[in-house]
């Protein structure tokens, strides 16, 4: 299959997914118990406001028509207004999403810096103490509750030692050093959460690669293990590993909510979370929709890049 055909097919497959996702997000307001108008307004709202709300959201229209209205507005960037903050949802997302991206990048950076060397050394020195300690680290990483780690970090590094600020956020344009200071603890927690999976994955990919015939050939030719790993295996093992890392990065955008909430980091996860608590449904809908579409889009790009890097891959 040529690359162009592949991209075309992938785009075609994306369409039903996006439609289904948008229907699901649209349904949130319909599925919550009770009347959606009541969900949007406080009990004390008078008849006038009720009528205005019904008109604004088009609740008097049949459902399919409501959906079409909602989608066509969303496509034009109008995701409605926040009930609580009386700001357009798109503005709020525009503020929050970059912060979550910084956090995700930071967390991923820390995770990669720790897990890649660990996984690679574990594979090369298989069945030695290096391997075992890497596996124990991975297992502990998989079993630790991230929010608990966050609390402990806050307690010991933030409160007891006072090295780093415990909560909040500073914009990088305002004060870059302050921005980094605020980012370190949340990003480290996030990175710790990822270490388990990524160390295991790097290790198994690397082992698989080291078992391949070409490695045997090079060994029989007398090439040192160090050179085989340095020149060939590392490079070959990096393609699948980096692919999964980028896919996980996309998932990370939706996985930071807990950490954001603990560190009072005003990202998009925290935004959705507080919107659920305050029943600010337009914000919930907008946030979920944007995150899902970002996720779908990143997946698409990664798939295409993967195919481009390694044309042998067949994708159904």
């Amino acid at each position, binding site marked *: 299959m040529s690359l162009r055909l592949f991209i075309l097919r992938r785009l075609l*497959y994306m369409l*039903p*997914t*996006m439609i*289904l*996702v948008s229907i*699901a*997000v649209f349904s*949130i307001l319909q*599925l*919550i*118990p009770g009347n959606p108008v009541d969900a949007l307004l406080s009990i004390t709202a008078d008849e006038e406001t009720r009528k205005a709300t019904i008109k604004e959201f088009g609740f008097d229209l049949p459902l399919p028509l409501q959906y079409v209205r909602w989608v066509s507005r969303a496509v034009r960037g109008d995701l409605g207004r926040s009930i609580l903050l009386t700001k357009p949802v798109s503005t709020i997302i525009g503020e929050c999403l970059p912060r979550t991206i910084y956090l995700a990048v930071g967390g991923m950076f820390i995770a990669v810096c720790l897990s890649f060397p660990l996984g690679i050394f574990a594979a090369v020195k298989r069945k030695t103490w290096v391997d075992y300690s890497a596996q124990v680290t991975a*297992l*502990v990483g*998989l*079993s*630790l*509750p*991230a*929010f*608990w780690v966050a*609390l*402990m970090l*806050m*307690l010991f590094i933030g*409160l007891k030692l006072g090295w780093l600020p415990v909560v909040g956020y500073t914009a990088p344009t305002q004060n870059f050093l302050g921005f980094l200071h605020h980012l370190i603890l949340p990003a480290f927690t996030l990175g710790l959460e990822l270490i388990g999976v990524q160390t295991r994955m790097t290790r*198994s990919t690397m082992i*698989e690669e080291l078992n391949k015939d070409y490695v045997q050939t090079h060994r029989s030719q007398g090439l040192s293990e160090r050179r085989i790993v340095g020149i060939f295996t590392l490079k070959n093992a990096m393609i699948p590993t980096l692919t999964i890392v980028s896919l996980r990065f*996309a*998932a*990370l*955008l*939706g*996985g*930071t*909510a*807990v950490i954001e*909430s603990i560190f009072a980091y005003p990202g998009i*996860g925290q935004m*959705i*979370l507080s919107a*659920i*608590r305050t029943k600010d*449904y337009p914000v*919930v809908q907008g*946030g*979920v929709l944007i*995150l*899902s579409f*970002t*996720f*779908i889009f990143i997946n698409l790009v990664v798939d295409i890049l993967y195919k481009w890097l390694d044309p042998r891959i067949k994708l159904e």
Partner: protein
Amino acid sequence: MSAAKNIPLLDDPGWKGSVARFAHRFGMGLVRLSESRIALVGLIITVIVVLIAIFAPVLATHNPIKGDYSSTIAPPSRQHLLGTDNLGRDIWSRLVYGARNAVLVGITVVPAGMLMGIFLGAIPGFYGGRLDNLMMRFVDAWLAFPGLILFLALLAVLGQGLWQTIVALILGGTPGLVRLTRGLVLAERERDYVKAARLLGERNWRILFRQVIPNVSSPLIVVATIRLGGTLLLFAALTFLGLGPPPPAPSWGLMLNEARNLMETAPMVAVYPGLAIFITVLGVNLLGDGLRDVLDPRLAEK
């Protein structure tokens, strides 16, 4: 491995035979599980947690919900093994009762997820066609909600509470298991024994339920167990965020949330529930890894 495989065709032991075969396999599985030291440790931890949950009323020294206002934030003593929290509730008793929620999540989410996998993945996958295609589009859409967002959206709709959280955990974990089961069934469908059974005129649903599903059950159990660790962490995270069972329920995530305000005065209050979660999840993860090594070594490479 080959001994554990089904003997296909013409072998119809009836339900008694099926039960006997299942019991035999289960017993053999336990024997082999105990050979792996990792799995044994995991099994022991898991069993201890389950026992604690069952015997919580015996093990608890105090009422986990009613506090004693005369001794708040008390240090560990003979009366309060791990001390008390800001409302004077005995932390040890709350921890013990908290194990019940974790066990409840385990015994509901894992079997429910496997059933969903079989009904929504294996059956459409085996028959193929339009239904299968449609199901996959739904799975794609379901998987397009990244990370925690799916659970948050589900809880926004379902509301907050213990059962709502469990339903959200089941629904949220379904698409992954559906896709996995379908993939396994698709691979199994092309095997010779299925073709042979077809040639002999065996009915499709009998092939599916008597041959194919038993043969994919090992990897399914392994994956369901491995995922349980993550599910327990997720449950704890959601309760921590206040989306799970409402206070004053004794739940580990909730205890951590309440301990946040005591961080400076009584940091140990925040240490115990976290340790309980960590040890439980570690046990389940070890058990899952051990099960994988015993039941389906192929999965280890993935």
